[in-house]
């Protein structure tokens, strides 16, 4: 199969050949070498600096959690009309970041998008770290983080059960299921790669032997047997098939936290798909933000190609427009409903005291991705880096706008309030990025950041020719 030459036909690509997922036509061995290089070589200075910065931020978060643990949630800015403030905003934000990982690993897998294979592993890892960051916020927001078991329905001496009709209990089920299934999905993909690492670690010194033991245990003794691949591939398909509705359900349930209430601005039926679209939007932006660095630091430009990033930018444009559609629908239906309270809430969002947050949200989420209409901007690394950061800011503000504007001014003007975050709130918000990047950096250093066997499977010439053909 020949490689598409992008320069043919006056700038129009040749549609009759399949675009290559991996550039430079490497051999299978080259792929292994490139991907395991960061693991087998000593850490670079760039990596150490990045880790130091992340860990410094992470320690800020640890201090923030310690303060919240010791003095209680009174250290936060939450008050009575705004009982849900930064914690829920950060929770929804981080869970949303995680969704891109599952989308890439599961939904794009079901749609047979081969370009996903280069970024799937990283995105899956990101899912797990983001859900870890997210989970801490509601845990501490309960006020008694040492009693998480109360969230589960277990037979207890208080003779009470959890309320199965509460969206917060649904959240517990959804987020824990999401975390567990993502972990299994991630690990299932990692097993053959650990086996590859195991078979490459041949040194006789103590460190090598230790590494080999760890890899042997983690790889479960995988032997690359086709009799195993047969089940493995089917299981991978099943996991993708299960994760796809799962990822939809998780953010749907997160949106139910808001939407089942009667609060104006929260109760609207488009919330579930709107939250899912927003989650994918922010998650893709985060993947782009980090991948831009990883492919540069680890010399993986030919595996994580510009084409892949361009496709991700297209999805960012699509989901950004979907989110814009939801904003428009909300506004239109608020007017159309004829409900004065509903109308007030939306006018208040756009022109009230929190209008600055609203317009940050609109400009970052709806306007900034529109530059991806142009191919040149879509393929420019600095532009996509800046845009993806904008999108993350915008999506954080989206949750802020939804939570804070609706809570500060709902029905009775006598019950209106105001919200000011505290220093602890900010330390937790920024510190959670430290936790996320610390985990990400450790992951990219100690595990194969690109799925070795999956990338080999989509290379030109990986398919026997009489079964060849396109997807």
């Amino acid at each position, binding site marked *: 199969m020949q490689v598409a030459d992008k320069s043919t036909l006056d700038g129009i690509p040749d549609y009759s050949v399949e675009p290559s997922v991996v550039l430079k036509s490497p051999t299978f061995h080259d792929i292994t070498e490139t991907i395991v290089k960061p693991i087998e070589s000593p850490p670079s200075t760039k990596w150490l600096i990045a880790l130091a910065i992340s860990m410094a931020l992470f320690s800020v978060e640890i201090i923030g959690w310690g303060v919240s643990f010791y003095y209680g949630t009174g250290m936060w800015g939450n008050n009575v009309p705004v009982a849900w403030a930064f914690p829920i905003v950060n929770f929804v934000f981080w869970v949303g970041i995680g969704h891109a990982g599952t989308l890439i690993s599961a939904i794009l897998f079901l749609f047979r998008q081969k370009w996903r294979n280069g970024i799937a592993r990283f995105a899956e890892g990101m899912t797990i770290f983001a859900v870890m960051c997210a989970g801490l916020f509601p845990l501490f927001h309960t006020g008694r983080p040492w009693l998480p078991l109360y969230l589960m329905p277990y037979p207890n001496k208080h003779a009470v059960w959890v309320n199965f009709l509460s969206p917060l209990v649904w959240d517990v089920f959804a987020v824990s299921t999401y975390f567990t299934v993502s972990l299994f999905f991630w690990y299932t993909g990692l097993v053959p790669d650990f086996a590859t690492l195991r078979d490459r670690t041949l040194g006789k010194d103590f460190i090598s032997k230790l590494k080999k033991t760890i890899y042997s245990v983690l790889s479960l003794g995988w032997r690359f047997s086709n009799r195993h691949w047969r089940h493995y591939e089917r299981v991978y398909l099943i996991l993708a098939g299960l994760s796809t509705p799962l990822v939809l359900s998780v953010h749907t349930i997160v949106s139910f936290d808001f939407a089942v209430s009667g609060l104006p601005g929260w109760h609207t039926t488009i919330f579930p798909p709107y939250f899912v679209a927003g989650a994918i939007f922010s998650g893709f932006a985060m993947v782009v933000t980090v991948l831009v660095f990883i492919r540069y630091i680890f010399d993986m430009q030919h595996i994580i190609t510009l084409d892949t990033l361009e496709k991700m930018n*297209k999805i960012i444009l699509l989901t950004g427009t979907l989110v814009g559609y939801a904003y428009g629908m909300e506004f239109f239906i608020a007017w159309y409903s004829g409900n004065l309270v509903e109308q007030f809430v939306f006018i208040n969002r756009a022109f009230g005291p929190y209008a600055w947050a609203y317009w940050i949200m609109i400009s970052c989420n709806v306007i900034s991705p529109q530059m991806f209409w142009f191919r040149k901007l879509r393929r420019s690394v600095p532009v996509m880096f800046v845009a993806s950061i904008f999108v993350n800011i915008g999506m954080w503000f989206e949750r802020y706008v939804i939570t804070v504007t609706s809570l500060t001014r709902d029905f009775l003007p006598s019950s209106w309030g105001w919200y000011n975050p505290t220093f602890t709130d900010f330390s937790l918000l920024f510190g959670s990025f430290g936790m996320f990047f610390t985990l990400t950096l450790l992951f990219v250093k100690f595990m194969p950041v690109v799925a070795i066997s999956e990338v080999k499977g989509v290379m030109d010439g990986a398919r026997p020719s009489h079964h060849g053909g396109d997807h």
Partner: protein
Amino acid sequence: MSTVNPSAAYEKKALPGKASSFGWVALILGVVLAGAGYAMDPLRTQFVSIMLLMFIAGVAICPLFMVAVEYLAGVVWSTPIRRVFELVTNLVWFLPIFALPVLFNMGNIYEWTYMSDPILMRKAPYLNETFFIIRFFVIWILWVVFQQLFVKRSLKQDETGDQSLTAKNIKMSALFIPVFGLSITALSIDFMMSLEPHWFSTIFGVNFFAGSLVASLAVVAIATILLNENGYLGKGIVSDHYYNLGFGMFAGCVFWTYTAFSQGMLIWYANLPEETPWFIHRWENGWSTITYFLLFVHFVVPLFGLIQRKNKRSVNRMLFMSLWVIFAHMVDLYWIVMPTYGHNPNAHSHGPTIGLAELGAVAIAAGVITLVFTMGAKNKNLIPVGDPKLQRGLNFRL
């Protein structure tokens, strides 16, 4: 690489006369039934005409959306059957004919034309007859223009094989998708949501889109399977292509259920007086049976019927499931539209009944889709022989 040369395997063949005869018979039967229904209960027939219009509109425009997605995402499996999609979209030309019965009888059908209260007065800038008609025709013109642009280029490519036409259509697709999203939402809000003008739901348009997508994929699947099994599409299209159509129907049904569940669950849970009446109308007077039935036909059966790989690759089962999901979409539209008829002061019955008009609508829909398809297919290649992605699409295997 073992490849099928499309131009060698495919020959242009005229569709058999029996297809258009079936269309004419169904159409005439449908018109007679609808006429008889009109004589018995004019108001009911006017409500049924909304169902018919929305069914045809959804089936007409969603294939064009699929074509746009194919261009944008670089999908190859659907390229060999893209002409089938394009021929189904010819239906958009006839939308005004289906809209006329609704537009002429707006004063009987739509509460907001004859009722007035403070809430409806506030909605009057949007819900008034002039703007309603303008919106419909703007949407129609947009759809026709886009449909023409897509199809013209695609047909031109049959002769020239020029790849720049694909590049132009890709740009067109990016423009079309936002237009499509807004227009199909507006159409569903206008014709169906405003039947009960006090009720509102932000997800309504998405829900209608999901249902229409499923029905249009089913129409395309039936056409593709019948044409291909009788040798009109050459030799390159195999059960793996059917599989993808079935997968689309499956995913669409699940997505429809997701939107319907979001809408129903949130309104049920929050229990707000301005939102619940719509669901109460679909629960009382025996409508709860139809609600359960809808869940069964639109979710349970497609879920179990289409989840298995072998069902999606089998000709007979795919034909059956396609007919089934079309039926499910009609039940969906019936469930949305007809309870409002039951609450009309001039209604003859309040509960779920099937009149001659509904049967007529089904026959008209079947007849019109067949006729438009066969007439549009005259003297045309049934696979896009000039498309650069055709060979890759024919090579597609799971």
